[in-house]
């Protein structure tokens, strides 16, 4: 992508209030993730208090059923939840972009086969399939990443294929072909640079989805029970029936709000970026 | 160009669009009269305001646009004084529109018959049965078999959809018909047939027709008079007959000179230098002077008025009589 196009995108993006809010939220989470060890008051894996303690000055959000500090758990949870979501989304996006570009540009039978695959993945209800996969594979960070990316790639692949298809018929790509440019030249100079901003927007929107699904899977007890993601915290809260007591205020509410805030950050950024790079969507708001 | 007994009279109509960058003066101070049974061509380049002017007549200007001044007299009634509800009665009954893209102007989920019937029933107290039978007559008039009344728009070709649009425009026998680039994008043969149909219906029904077009030779060929618009201003208003030989305004001259001919001596065409002005910050004085070969200092200071010339035509140029007197502009 040329620098001026980038600059232009940035300029339009900055005028979008949603985008600014989204990026600010994401920056805050990035800070927490990087400095989790410094910020959190305790080691989340140590039993530092009595079980089921109410919030106090020593434990701002109380303790869980085995006496671990909830606030520290949540701060460290950002690493697992966001990290896992981002890694899975990146892998899914890479697959999606490659499939989209190949299907769109190659056309013909390759396109037909790849797109039928996309249709199949999109029709199968995703959570049941994920539960089946996760149950069969067993809980671990990388198994979750695998399960998530196997499902998520399909939607971006379809979006990017549509973009490549319209790009292929666009005058300037046809013109580049007529001057005798090779397939590689056209892909790398005309198609991929035009698709990348959209890929990026899709990556951010996909991260939103992976974070939510990871939380659901962990909540169902299909995540890695050792590592503390926000979903895992809620799994234990549910298992210990925290919502039947006053503990829901500090054990259930905060992790959910954190998930919502992170997802909202990705959603705002993603929508704003999509609107900036995809002229068809401009004026959607 | 007499205004007496005119069906439509526009006086100093101005329409602007208010966007983030400022006020786009799409139409400024246009005065115009159209007689019953007259076909007048509104000619200009893209973005000159000709469509905006046409839609202003029907008061169909949407936000961020607004008609900011002037009078629109149709049949002795000033439309500017009418509320939106009253306008709804006037639209289609008194003035109808054949839109630019008939492809998209018909609702894809309704049968063409339904769409014509609903426009009849919106204005007249007739039974459904009467409305359907009139719809069939209308379709027959534009050369579409009556049995196709229950077909959907996507089942017609481009030229036929345009005919359906014409039938729809005639549904309430309007006195004034606006045709907004209604044949642009059609094939030459189809265009010839559609325009022929409009022409035929106009004389048999004694309608006034405003033909909005960018195609000067075509307008010269078929209309009675023409109005040339540049940057939202009327620059010349004249009889179509003989206009090609004696355009007065330098912009009209430029247009005539830029078009190759199919018969006669082939002359070198010349384009008009520069490009149309930005309508947010139009030039001072005559809006054409930055591109005009004959411009003098006064042109950049005073805006010329649209004045009657010796032969009855109107032109907005400080040196109109100079060009008007010249019979040798183009042989």
């Amino acid at each position, binding site marked *: 992508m040329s620098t001026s196009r980038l600059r232009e995108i940035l300029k339009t993006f900055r005028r979008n209030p949603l985008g600014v809010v989204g990026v600010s939220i994401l920056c805050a989470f990035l800070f927490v993730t990087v400095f989790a060890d410094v910020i959190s008051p305790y080691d989340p894996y140590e039993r530092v208090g009595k079980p089921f303690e109410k919030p106090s000055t020593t434990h701002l959000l109380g303790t869980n059923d085995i006496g671990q500090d909830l606030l520290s758990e949540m701060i460290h949870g950002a690493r697992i939840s966001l990290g896992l979501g981002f890694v899975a989304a990146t892998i899914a996006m890479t697959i999606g972009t490659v499939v989209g570009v190949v299907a769109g540009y190659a056309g013909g039978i390759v396109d037909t086969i790849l797109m039928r695959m996309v249709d*199949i993945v999109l*029709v*199968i*209800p*995703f*959570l*049941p399939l994920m*539960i*089946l*996969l996760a*149950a*069969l*594979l067993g809980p671990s960070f990388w198994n979750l990443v695998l399960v998530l990316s196997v499902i998520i790639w399909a939607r971006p692949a379809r979006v990017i294929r549509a973009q490549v298809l319209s790009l292929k018929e666009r005058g300037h790509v046809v013109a580049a072909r007529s001057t005798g440019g090779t397939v590689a030249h056209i892909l790398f100079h005309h198609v991929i640079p035009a698709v990348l901003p959209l890929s990026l927007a899709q990556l951010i929107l996909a991260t*939103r989805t992976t974070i939510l699904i990871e*939380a*659901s899977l962990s*909540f*169902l*007890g*299909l995540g890695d029970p050792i590592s503390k993601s926000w*979903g895992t915290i*809620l799994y234990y809260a*549910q298992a210990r029936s925290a*919502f*039947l007591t006053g503990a*829901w205020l500090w054990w*259930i*509410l905060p*992790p*959910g709000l954190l*998930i919502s805030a992170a*997802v*909202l950050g990705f*959603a*705002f950024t993603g929508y704003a970026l999509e609107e900036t790079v995809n002229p068809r969507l401009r*004026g*959607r*708001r | 160009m007499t205004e007496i007994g005119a069906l439509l009279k526009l006086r100093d109509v101005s329409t602007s669009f208010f966007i983030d960058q400022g006020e786009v003066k799409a139409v400024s101070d246009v005065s115009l009269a159209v007689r019953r049974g007259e076909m007048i061509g509104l000619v200009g380049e893209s973005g000159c305001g000709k469509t905006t002017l046409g839609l202003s007549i029907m008061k*169909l200007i949407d936000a961020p646009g607004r008609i900011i001044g002037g009078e629109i007299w149709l049949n002795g009634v000033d439309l500017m004084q009418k509320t939106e509800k009253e*306008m*709804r009665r006037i*639209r*289609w*009954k008194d003035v*109808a*529109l054949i*839109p630019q*893209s008939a492809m*998209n*102007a*018909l*609702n*894809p*989920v309704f049968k063409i018959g339904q769409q014509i019937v*609903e*426009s009849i029933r*919106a204005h007249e107290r007739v039974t459904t049965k009467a409305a359907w039978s009139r719809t069939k007559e209308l379709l027959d008039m534009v050369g579409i078999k009556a049995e196709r009344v229950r077909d959907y728009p*996507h*089942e017609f*070709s481009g030229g036929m959809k345009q005919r359906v649009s014409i039938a729809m425009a005639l549904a309430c026998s309007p006195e004034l018909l606006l045709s907004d680039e209604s044949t642009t994008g059609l094939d030459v043969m189809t265009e010839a047939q559609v325009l022929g149909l409009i022409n035929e219906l106009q004389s048999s029904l004694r309608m006034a027709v405003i033909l909005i077009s960018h195609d000067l030779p075509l307008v010269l060929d078929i209309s009675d008079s023409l109005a040339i618009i540049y940057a939202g201003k009327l620059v010349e208003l004249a009889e179509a007959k003989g206009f090609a030989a004696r355009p007065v305004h330098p912009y009209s001259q430029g247009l005539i000179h830029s078009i190759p001919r199919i018969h006669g001596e082939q002359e070198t065409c010349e384009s008009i230098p520069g490009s149309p002005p930005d309508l947010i910050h139009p030039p001072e004085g005559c809006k054409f002077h930055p591109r005009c070969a004959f411009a003098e200092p006064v042109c950049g200071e005073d805006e010329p008025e649209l004045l009657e010339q010796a032969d009855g035509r109107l032109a907005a140029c400080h040196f109109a009589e100079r060009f008007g007197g010249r019979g040798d502009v183009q042989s």
Partner: protein
Amino acid sequence: MRKFLLGKILQYAIVMAVVVSLNFLLPRLMPGTPIEMLGGEGVWLLSQAERDAITAKHGLDKSLGQQYIQYLANLFRGELGHSYNWGQPVGQMIAKRLPWTLLLTGTALILSTSFGILLGTFASWRRGKKSDILSISASMTVSSMPSFWLGMVLVAIFAVQLKLLPVFGARSPWTDYTGFRLVLDVLEHLILPVTSLVLLTLSGNFLLMRYSMLDVLGSDYVFMARAKGMTEGAVVYRHAMRNALLPMATAFMLNVGFMFSGAIVTETVFAYPGVGRMMYEAALARDYPLLQGAFLVISITVIGANLLSDFLYPLLDPRVRRPSREH
């Protein structure tokens, strides 16, 4: 038209084949021995003879091809195996639970779609106004919340703290209500789970309807309807909304699958006796036959719903119902 439907049937047949095959292949392709997948984790506590019996029962000693044929034959007879945990036939267990899930997801689907259409239309009218921007932000915020968490918070507030609604289940335990009283009881238990499912999909429907409406309101045929002097009501409801509903029909299909995914977590939170909660329990207990059976039934239901809506779509869109003779 027939071509369109034929194509659709074919397409879904392929999806079905893939789902059925996946269900067969996954446990056999996973690392570890398939016997553990099919016999449960406790299989290693059994004697060699018992293990051989399980191997023989599932035909694990035969070739993959023969196993597949056996599997298909069983499936065709509606035999999904026995739950390793409960010992009951999987088919029967699912049949008992499915109506509850259908009630839950069906209600939520209808409510979410209708509200989405109403709110989206309203917001498109007030485009760019404060209430429009507010409703967009609100809907995005709600859609960012994990649905199971929303469910937990709803329970904590409305059931536990305010004691307005029941905490869990589909009916009050130890009661034998009949008639109208039963209906009321079921409805009461339905409110919270349906709300959390509706909130899960509402914002998507709302944003789509609003975007679709804006798109249509800017179209030439809506402009023409106004030029024809139609009343504002006829323009919006007759001309615009009819067309804006077309993309909603497609979204409705996608939502069917989405609802079933949502039902798993929602039923878990509310201890609702549907297939979703059963699948969750099966996953926790590593009860593979039950898990696979539930997966298969949910997939078939979703595919069936998709096929149904594809068959109904032509009624909405004449371009599909009566394709033009040209091209």
